[in-house]
Every structure is written in structure tokens, then in C-alpha cells.
């Protein structure tokens, strides 16, 4: 399964090793740390869940299937928060495990399952002051004075 970031409603920045994501449609914002940041950055590169999982398996020590399941759960959580949407057009794309640099098992560090924090304290702004963006064909207007 391939997901893509739900742009332009979702914007994000990574600074100091932490990612802040803002869902402009819901008013919710999110804080990602650790392996969740790596998953998000993979999504930004357009990678599939499988590729993201393979990359993490090259960097982290984990039980068989643990990383794949953790990535799947995280992507489902992202989809539930409408941070990502399924992108059928890119299913089955990109890197295989052979494309990744080899790494000795000894170099890998223990895997910590990704998670994120969600903040909903700003959603009142969206509920009270919503924005309707219309296209540039022109200002949709009623006759003056209405």
C-alpha cells in the first residue's frame, strides 16, 4: 500500500529531529519523534509502506514482522487523522531491499515503535472561522448590495 501526504491540507516541518504536522482542515496538529519521523520522511519521499519498513529493518533490530506491523499501524493512524491518503497510482513503486546499503546486524539499534502526539486545542478556530478557498476563475459574487 502506498500513501501520500494529504497536501495541501497537511503541512509539516522537521526541526531538531522532531516533526510538527498541521492539518489545516481539522485544526489538529501533531508531534512526531523517533522512528515516526523516519516514517513521515519516507512518505514525503513518496515511498511505499513496504519500502519504509525495509529501510527501518536495515537500521533497527527487531523481531521478525515487528517493524512491518508497526509501520502499518502508524500509517493507519495517519490515515485516520487524514494526514495521508491512499495513492493507488503509486502502489508497488520504489526501492527494494537490494537497493538499500547493507548494514551489519551489529550496527543496528533496538527498534522503538513509532508513535505521535495529537493536539486539538486549536480546532475551535476551524469550527468558528472556517476558510472556503475558491479558485481563480474569479471572485464568486452575488450582485452588489446583497
Amino acid at each position, binding site marked *: 500500500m502506498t500513501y501520500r501526504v494529504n497536501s495541501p491540507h497537511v503541512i509539516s516541518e522537521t526541526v*531538531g529531529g522532531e516533526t*510538527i504536522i498541521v492539518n489545516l482542515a481539522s485544526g489538529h496538529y501533531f508531534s512526531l519523534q523517533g522512528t515516526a519521523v523516519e516514517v513521515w520522511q519516507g512518505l514525503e519521499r513518496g515511498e511505499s509502506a513496504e519500502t519504509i519498513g525495509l529501510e527501518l529493518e536495515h537500521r533497527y533490530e527487531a523481531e521478525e514482522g515487528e517493524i512491518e506491523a508497526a509501520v502499518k499501524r502508524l500509517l493507519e493512524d495517519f490515515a485516520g487523522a487524514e494526514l495521508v491518503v491512499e495513492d493507488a497510482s503509486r502502489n508497488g513503486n520504489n526501492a527494494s531491499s537490494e537497493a538499500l546499503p547493507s548494514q551489519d546486524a551489529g550496527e543496528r539499534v533496538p527498534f522503538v515503535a513509532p508513535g505521535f502526539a495529537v493536539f486539538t486545542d486549536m480546532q475551535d478556530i476551524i469550527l468558528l*472561522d472556517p*476558510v472556503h478557498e475558491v479558485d481563480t476563475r474569479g471572485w464568486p*459574487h452575488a450582485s452588489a448590495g*446583497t
Partner: protein
Amino acid sequence: MPLPAPEAAEGTLDNSIDELEKGFERAAQAAVELVERSIRIGDAHVRLRFAGVALAGQLGCAFEHLAHEETDEPELTIHVWDSTDSGTPPPPLPSLAPGSPRGTTVYTADEGRHFACRPALGQLSAYERATGKAWFWCSNAHDLPFWEPAAPFRQILHWWLPDRGALLLHGAAVGQADGGVLLVGAGGSGKSTCALSCLTSDLLYAGDDYVGVQIQPEPRVLSLFCSGKLEPDHAELLPHLPSPSFAGDGALEEKSVFYVAERFPERMCRGFPLRAIVAPRVQGVEPQVQRRGPAQVLAALAPSTLLQLVPARQEALSAMAGLLGDIPAFGLDVGGPTELIPPTIERLLAELAS
């Protein structure tokens, strides 16, 4: 809630600009007086043209501290009028679906022009980059919500400042001539209390809710509004604050506002170099500063800025993150006596300077 289909889909942004030009000219001819004021934001000359004394009184006071005698051409000219006082018809406005929230904004733009309208509030803002012209129309100058006189034209400034390498940010700012702090956070975080507590100190005041921040060549706070919002608990927390310059409608949860330039003119400033970005929170028994990760402070700054202005774009978030890559970030617990806040900020600035 979806918008109804446009009633005049052939309308173009060119036509909309023409309508605004004509609308202001009609109001200016009808007005008893055309009030023109020049202000300086950073090093940019901005001219405010009010078609009517009432509007100048309502929306000009927040810029008193930026007044400047100017002879050069302005980089931005804001044309301001209303329909009630001028007796002129409103510009073409978008329709809203029945039941839309009162604060609903309809926004459209092309490469160099922005339009934002709040039909239920009777307000329209527009900006054209190529000509450096902007327009603010309201239905009735005497019936503006409290935030307009407190922070006028902030939607226009949000569009214009990036053209000058700056950002409009939701934050307060206090400091000294050689450097100050930006206080960020959502409403209720304590940033306004922090900024207003400094009015009895030697610290200068650049704003309590919105300020500009110039990104290059060095980050610098640009004061925009000399207003201060009075929270319900300020009478007890900050007894030095004056009575409001105008009172908000409590029934609509509006705040009262006073103009710092009127009551504490020696404290107002036009800006200062930005030395730290600080996220206050009402916690603890005395003010205390802690180092924070840039992402934590970005979370305090970005959503509350981006969700209150249109458009909210990735570029603005990236610029804020870039700022936090250059400027140290701190948390500030502001529980306890408010008179201890100014010396705490002064100590932080001294440590950063050493």
C-alpha cells in the same frame, strides 16, 4: 459546508480589483474628509488612506507609534472605507451557504493578488503585489469586532510582509534596543500577560498578539500594533494597566483593548533584533526559564499563526522552522507574581548577550 455556485462566474480578479478601486474612489468623494497617514513598518513606508474620520479613528490608533513624515513613494498603500458612513454600496461580495459560521472567510488568489472576505461580518481585504495596493472595506466602521481596532489589516499584512522577507506571527514581543524575545503560544498561554507585565519595567514593548518578524539579514521583530488586550484576570494580575481605550462586547466574549502608545508612550518601540523565542505557560510558583527543543516551540507558534490567517502555506511553516533553527528556543513558566516576569526576561537577554 459547500459554497453555493457563483452567481457571476464570469467575474475575474481584474474586475474585482477595478470594483475595489471604484468603490474606494466613490467613498473618498463622498467623505467629509480623506484622512491620510504615513507609517513606517521596519524600513518600509506604508500609507493609510481612510475615506472618513470615523474609520481613521477606529483603525488608525493601533499604528500611532509608527507614524512617520514621509516624502518617498509608499511600498504599500491601504485604502480603507465603509458603506455606512460613506453612503456608498458595498463591493461585490461572495455568497455564503445558509448556516455558515459568522467568522467564515471566503478566499481567492492568483499569483500576485489575494482576496479574503468575511461576508457575515461585512469585511473584505485585498492586496495586489504588482502595484503595492491594498483595500479594506467594512460595512460599518462603528460596528467592528474588537480585534479589528486592536490589530487592523492583519490579513493584508500577512500577504504583504512575505514580499519583504518578513512574516506576520501570532506572538507578543518585549525587549531592549539591542535585542528582545518573541513570546509565542495559543490564547491563554500567558504571552499577553508576560508582555503587559513589562510595561512597568525598563523593557520595551512591540506588541502583545501579532508582530512582524524580518527574517533576513538578521531576525528582527517589527512592531505593528501598539494595542494591548485586557484579559478578565488582568485587573488583579496587572493592576498597573489602565482602563480600556475601548470596551469589547462581553456578550460576544470580546476583550477590551487599550493603546500602549497612549498610556505608556516611553515603552513603545518599533522593533529590535530577535534574540530568543519563548513559549510561556501559566505554571509554577515563580517565573522560570527552561531551554526547549525548537519543535516544541514551533508547535506553540505555528498552528496558532497559520490557522488564523489565509492562506496557510507550507512556505510559512518552513520559514518559522528556519527561524527556530537560527534562534534559541525557551519555555517560560509564568505562574506566581507577575512583577518577577520582567527581571526574568532581562536576565535571559543578559545571558544570551554574554
